[in-house]
């Protein structure tokens, strides 16, 4: 197991180099001059432009820029963005907010998705199953920005149950409403996945054998149906965590959440290579760790999966 984890962590190196190189190159190839964009309509003196260009190494060829970026990264000095702020400091501001949002959304999906899915799967074709299926279809079909605005209006403005926007001081309570919106779509998928998996496993031979042993119904469901049904669901949730950490541009935008999505969006608008690549680097790490966790959870859920061979 230790060997497996080490091997997986070593894989981070090529993945990391590959993704940052690719993203860096794409930013480099973007049309438009980021320095000119900084000054808007005004035309700065040529000397200022030249100073800024050399300060941000924009006058260097691509490989030198990329090399300098890597060097900075490994010396834990991400440099400043074009507004002069240290990148590391702004990342340290946005990631905790997005992480809170992602964890909340994931918890909502996992807890409600699995619970509803199990009940629907056990009584397939019953009223609960039918209602939940139609409702989840609606959730999947309606775009997030519509859901977001509707929730904001109904729960934030009309009912006043939650703050309609999050603003600078994000905490667990204020993030709840955007987390619900963010989690809803995946909640529908988790529900359907769990439901399908449960109703398939219900008819498995070992479930019948478990009943024949004289076990009570709750015990059969928990020990023999649920655990086996979680395997595909866990894969989905793990992949989803990576996606959620990447920031939800739309949801963060609607609720004015100062998170990764917002930051990334602004950096792209300004062609700020170093900021974009720094965010992507952290995301690569998050993805790799999330996938590793999924694999470990997998092995725990299904002992037939062994990674040491």
């Amino acid at each position, binding site marked *: 197991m230790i060997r497996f984890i080490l091997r997986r962590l070593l894989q981070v190196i090529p993945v990391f180099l590959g993704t940052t190189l690719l993203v860096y190159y794409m930013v480099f190839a973007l049309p438009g001059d980021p320095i000119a964009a900084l000054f808007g309509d005004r035309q700065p003196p040529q000397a200022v432009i030249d100073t800024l260009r050399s300060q941000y190494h924009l006058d260097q060829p691509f490989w030198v820029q990329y090399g300098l970026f890597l060097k900075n990264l490994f010396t834990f000095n991400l440099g400043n963005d074009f507004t002069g702020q240290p990148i590391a400091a702004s990342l340290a501001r946005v990631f905790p907010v997005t992480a809170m949002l992602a964890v909340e959304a994931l918890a909502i999906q996992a807890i409600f998705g699995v619970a509803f899915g199990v009940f629907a799967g056990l009584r397939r074709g019953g009223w609960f199953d039918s209602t939940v299926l139609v409702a989840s279809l609606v959730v999947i079909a309606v775009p997030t920005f519509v859901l977001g605005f509707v929730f904001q209006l109904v729960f934030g403005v009309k009912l006043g149950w939650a703050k309609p926007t999050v603003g600078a001081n994000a905490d667990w309570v204020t993030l709840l409403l955007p987390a619900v919106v963010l989690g809803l779509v995946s909640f529908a998928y988790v529900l359907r996945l769990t439901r399908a998996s449960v109703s398939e496993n219900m*008819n498995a031979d070992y479930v019948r054998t478990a009943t*024949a*042993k*004289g076990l009570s119904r709750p015990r059969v469901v928990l020990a023999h149906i649920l655990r086996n049904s979680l395997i595909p669901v866990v894969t989905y949730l793990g992949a989803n965590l990576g996606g959620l950490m990447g920031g939800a541009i739309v949801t963060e935008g609607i609720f004015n959440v100062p998170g990764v999505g917002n930051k990334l969006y602004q950096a792209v608008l300004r062609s700020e290579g170093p900021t974009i690549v720094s965010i992507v680097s952290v995301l690569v790490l998050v993805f790799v760790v999330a996938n590793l966790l999924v694999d470990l959870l997998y092995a725990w859920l299904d002992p037939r999966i062994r990674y040491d061979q």
Partner: protein
Amino acid sequence: MRDKEMTTPDVRIDEAGTTGIRPLLEIRDLAITFKTGGGEVKAVRDAHLTIMPGETVAIVGESGSGKSTTALAAIGLLPNNGKVSGGQILLDGEDIAHASEQRMIELRGNTIGMVPQDPMSNLNPVWKIGYQVRETLRANGRPSGPDDIAKVLSQAGLPDAKRRANQYPHEFSGGMRQRALIAIGLSCQPRLLIADEPTSALDVTVQRQILDHLETMTNELGTSVLLITHDLGLAAERADKVVVMYQGRVVEAGPSLELLRNPQHPYTKRLVESAPSLASRRIQVAKEQGVETTDLLAPAAETAKSDTFLQIQDLRKVYKLRQGLGKAADFAAVDGVSFDVRRGTTTAIVGESGSGKSTVAKMVLQLEKPTDGRILFDGVDTSALKPAELFKFRRRVQPIFQDPYGSLDPMYNIYRTIEEPLRVHKIGDQASREKKVRTLLDQVALPQSAMQRYPNELSGGQRQRVAIARALALDPEVIICDEAVSALDVLVQAQVLNLLADLQANLGLTYLFITHDLAVVRQIADHVCVMEKGRLVETGSTDDVFESPQQDYTKALLNAIPGAKLMLPPEVA
């Protein structure tokens, strides 16, 4: 008491001497209905059955006869769409046909135990064996410490039980899993044990050990057993009484030997005639008496030619087994096997799972490359074939595989399935190919109307006929049958074996028959090669091997055929 007509309501077996003792289980007029898309289907009707304390009763029948459904009803485990629509299930006088779920949970495990059919799918793969035993003990209020678990497992014949309890099902062999399931079924010492085909997925020798052990255990505990099986020989050998079910009805019931010697109902008669385990005895008896042998043996005798068609010389196949840290160990799946196959004859390779018999078949089919040794086909070394020659070779050698459900493409209709090899080999045009397909369907006795149907609309036997037709499409000379009849019910199996024998007589085919079932070998093969752990341990003509086996392993295999020890009077044959 024996009923002669299936309409007679009372087929209960009353034995002299047991009157006054209340039966442990009595099933009266049982009817079971399933709700399906096409309306209600009566799966069981007017079923009767009586089991006295300590007695073993077997229900025999083919798939779909309602034997498993009847047994499942007795433990309240009918599928959701099934229900008892009439009659009574009396357990020690209490009618449990419509008992509450709570009452059934009380009874299951403690009073009624079950050993299910397929050891591969009946243990939950995510829990340790010990855990699955423990929850059984716990649910029925019995001590469930590590020692209790080990005791239960070792009583079922599992060696080193304490350590084994900490393993997962996938670390167990099929036989060990079945022992674990028997341990679970008997762990709470139920008064009635329902054993649903408890060994049909296992090798014959393992089957014998497990059934012996089950018999010993149930005798010691005084448990009554309801044994469900498709094998009449096995039923007769293991049970005091046999109940024969056909299309949801009990057609005949009686003491085992009596029923076997003197079957009354036409279906039972057919079953006795076709049971492979009994047929092996039947052919032998017929021959001893100088009676003309059955048509199953005749074609081989007629067409037996002396020229060697297929020569297997010192064949070896070594697989690398990974053992971590980049190390690999050699595993010889096939180790120095040599034998000849003569034109127009049937050679059977027999062995248990893991003996390497299927690997030999794959190498002959050129689906696996031998590590060492040669395969001469019609005098030509097959390993030297160029791609174009290999393509021609494939036309002459065709396979039929075990699983008729898996070996046909579900998206191809029957016409396309049979026509495909002709198309691949660019034989004829559209019209002549269609004519050929029609001829082939005739040869395998399938109606022309089957052409437009899809595999899932056909029965297992029909599918295997389709597989045979497809194999015959290219007019091959050799057919390799890898467990080609193992997945079929006995009656269907007998039909398919007869079909293969007919085709051999008419077309002069050469068969290489891979099977674990010696009873089938007796019916179809001229020569037998017995394999054990990759080696050829015995070879000879079928008669020689069956009448005077030289090796202990062969003897053990022969002894393990269920029903082989039953003495049948000649008139049965």
